[in-house]
């Protein structure tokens, strides 16, 4: 069965691109969230195998969302998707338990590699 992934980002275009990449490579995108809160809610509802999480988002940022997800499920895999200049935030996210991160603008290969590695597939 293909792995189930939740995509959280406030920019629809990024969600679309990530979903496209993932779907095309036989992952199942089980849901999308457009802010941190949605990310947390959908995680609890859908219990995906992995979340891609933007950091800078309205309502609730990705770090907080990830923290809450990890509280709910300490084994949750959360891959941050962030701009290169969000160093401070990214470090915070890593400290808070991010599985890995992808830098925007991303290349398909890096996205896939990060997902595969997170699942221990490569």
């Amino acid at each position, binding site marked *: 069965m293909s792995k189930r992934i939740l995509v959280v980002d*406030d*920019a*629809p*275009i*990024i969600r*679309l*691109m990530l979903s496209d990449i993932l779907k095309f490579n036989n992952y199942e995108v089980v849901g999308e969230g457009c802010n941190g*809160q949605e990310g*947390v*809610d959908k995680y609890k509802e859908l219990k995906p195998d992995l979340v891609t999480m933007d950091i*800078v*988002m*309205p*309502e*609730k940022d990705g770090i*907080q969302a990830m*923290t*809450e997800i990890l*509280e709910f499920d300490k084994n949750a895999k959360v891959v941050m998707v962030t*701009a*290169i*200049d969000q*160093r401070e935030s*990214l*470090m915070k996210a*890593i*400290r*808070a*338990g*991010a*599985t*890995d*991160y*992808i*830098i*925007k*603008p*991303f*290349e398909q290969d*890096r996205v896939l*590699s*990060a997902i595969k*590695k*997170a699942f*221990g597939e*490569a």
Partner: protein
Amino acid sequence: MNMTPEEREGIIGEFLAESTEHLQLINDKLLEAESLVKEGQKVPDADLDAMFRSAHTIKGTASFMGLTKVVGLTHEAETILQRIKEHKMEITLEAIEILFDGFDVLESLLNDLKDSNQELTDIEESVKRIKALLEGDAVAPVASSETKGETESTLPPVESTEKQEASQEPLPAKSVEMPEVSSAKEEETNISEAEIKNATYISKSNINEKYLQQYLVELEQNIEDFNAQLLNLEEDNSKVDLINNLFRIMHTIKGSAGIVGVLEIQSLAHSMENILGVCREKGKTYENMFTLLFMGIDVIKELYDSLKTTQTVNKDVTQLCKELEKYYKEIINENSSPDKQDVLVKNEEASAAMTEPGLSTDQDIKRISTTIDISQFSKEERKSAEDLYKEGDQFYQIFIQIEGSCPTKSMKAFLLEEHLRKLGTILKISPLFESISDEMNSEILIGIVYASKEKDDKIKSSLSVEGVNLLSFDLMADELFSSTPEKKESDTMIKENSKPVEVGAAVQQTDVGKEVAARAKTSSVEISTIRIDSQKLDKLMNLSGELVIVRAQYARLVTLFNDSLTEQKELLRILSDIRTKYETFTGEYKRIASRNGNKRKQDEKMNELMESLSSRLAYLEMTTAKSNVMGHIHTLDETTISLGKLSSDIQTGVMQTRMMPIEGVFTRFKRIVRDIAKQVEKDVSLEIEGEDTELDKKIVDSLGDPLTHMIRNAVDHGIEDPETRVKKGKVRNGTVYLKASHQGNNICIEVGDDGKGLDPVAIAQSALKKGIIAEDQIDKMTEKEKLNLVFMPGFSTAAQVTGLSGRGVGMDVVKSMITSVNGVVDIETEVDKGTRFLMKIPLTLAIIQALLVVVGAETYAIPLESVTEIIKTRDEDIYSIDGNDTVKLRDHALSLVELEKVIKIKGTDRSQQKELKVVVISDGESQIGVAVDSLIGEEEIVIKSLSNHFTEVKGVTGASILGDGTIALILDPVAIIQESR
């Protein structure tokens, strides 16, 4: 089938999308087939079938569209596939190659259609090859470059090299920085040169067209939000939380621009984000930043417009970026030491600091990394290792490699360190992540001595990270620590250092988490929204309109059936009549026959005939009576009624999806009022009411320009300058207001000001001067009519034409735009009190209630909105004023026109009619009676726009298809009233 160009275009779009999918499928299956054939295996019938079906579908749709080339080519390809499918032909590599070629040509045809709506690519070669294959002839080899070369050669060479370069070199890690231009040269460039440069600007952007549309939708929203919030912040500097929002919006704009590949927007957004970043950090705003940021967002808007219309960027933003960067450096330097020369972007500073001297070359790193050895442990390190050993930790020596292409090496190293720290203790690591520079292009080797109680699988998987390879992972020998002395100090020290901090942070986070979770509970009820291309909604709207038509057709069918039911009843009646007559006849015959008993033979024959006739008649009666036509018609009637209900529900539903709050249009006016007020040096505030009022998207879109014009007018001409206002005893600060509200099926929009008001006399005089009206007309005009002169083309009351208004785009354009969405405009004004423009616009454009009337041989639809009443008038009641037919309607005189005279059609001679049917229509200002032949009734009709050829035809706005399939022209009451004057 007759189609309007719009319909055709829409269908072509559908066709293209569908066919591209089919082509994809065919290509995939062909590829599979090719490899199967190569391996000498059988191609599954299902695959052949799928390819055949796809080709067949493309052909079918294309023939419907009249695309001869697509049909011709696909037909040939389909034939091959069919033969193969029916095993009349073998699937060879040669056949597959020819099919590939054919479908490539088809693809290029589809691209032609997409770009130019024409079939340009030549199909002859390809068709020839397929035919040759079908005839079993030797086939000319496929010239693979031929068709591709053709399409590519249409691209300008510059662009293609541009694209190649871009694709070879993906966005650099620091792509947000401006391309380096020799600064000395740049500054020398004078304006005209810069302008020329702009005119011929070739964007470096490699735009990802697949995602562009989606990005634009998102960008538009972000631009609007940014404008609104920036304005808000400028008004009230204390709202520092807005800075966060602005920063976030700009960050999103930048991020998505990077993804789609619009470098210009990315650069601008980066520079703007930097400035906002400083504000965010320092928790304050800077006076001059607003002008710059507004300028920036305006340019982004320009880029947006250009992307939307041409899919390209035609503006050089280098200069503006430089200005923004300069300003950024100014403000960031404000509080720091002034002699600090090159202020770098914060993260650059950080990364620069991370590069330790002496670690700059790869060899050094490798040397240090590989020399990790327990023997080199310091005393303290050994101690802590000892304690961990006693606790039962396992020790590992790990070597990790970070890939050279990874753009964020130090961060990956940090990630690894953190992952390891969560599962155990890093005893030694080299190099530290702080000392790794992202700038290094070669791979980085990291050596680690690690202690953990976790299973090695878990540790390994924590090191499974993108851009990182695990080179070796070895359990270290136990003996290493056995001989070292014991001491516990270092262990506790480590624990003190790390644990309490972590616990504290965790507690804090849970608190925050709870709070947020509590808030989330209340907000989770919020309705989630999705964005939909408005064209899709338009289409849905059209389709639901079609449904209304179909329903009407069904209703008509029911009527027709009812008619035939009457016929059937008549038939039954005739049958029973025949039966009676037959009985009489047989009775009579038998009586006569018994009287002349001698003609036996004839008698027998006659009896036979009568019996046969009787049985057939009985059969006829039985079948006619038995058929349950009546019941079926009743069911049909009921079904039609529920169809009607469904279709109107669907229509309402679709209409509601098209409804959007007018807010989007309204918010931009805050900015406009601010800009204009600043320019004309007036104090003006804008008050907005009812921004959540919803109306059709199409109308919302068309309202922007007229409202902008009115608002500009209000600020520029309506509101007096502050001194004059004070002299008049008014408050210094002028107010412009914008209100929206619902009124039945209409929306009312009001644009007003508390300025000097409009003077009807001055308006009339001005119109006279401009030759819009003649002197003798003025006396006859009411005040209202005089005011309405401002809607005449070429009118402007401003004594002084400013740079803002009076550009020739006048209120006449406003009026025509409002009219084009079937709305009306009204003016209310009072000198020195202010002016109000009231607009009444229907909620939706696609479906209206109309009154159907007949004139001559044709049916016409009059929008019910403008019908005030229907009257009957006798010939003797009509009298003439100024040569115009007039009737008395209650206390008013009502001008009477015959429709045929206004729209110049062949009408009926009504002079002999005793009674005239008159429909009274109104455009909101004046009324007029339209004489018609007969009235059909009210009906919901779907508006179909007429093509451009008909724009000159006055009095008609569109057409509609009625239930019986006839077409009714929709009359334009406003134009009819104007024309009849």
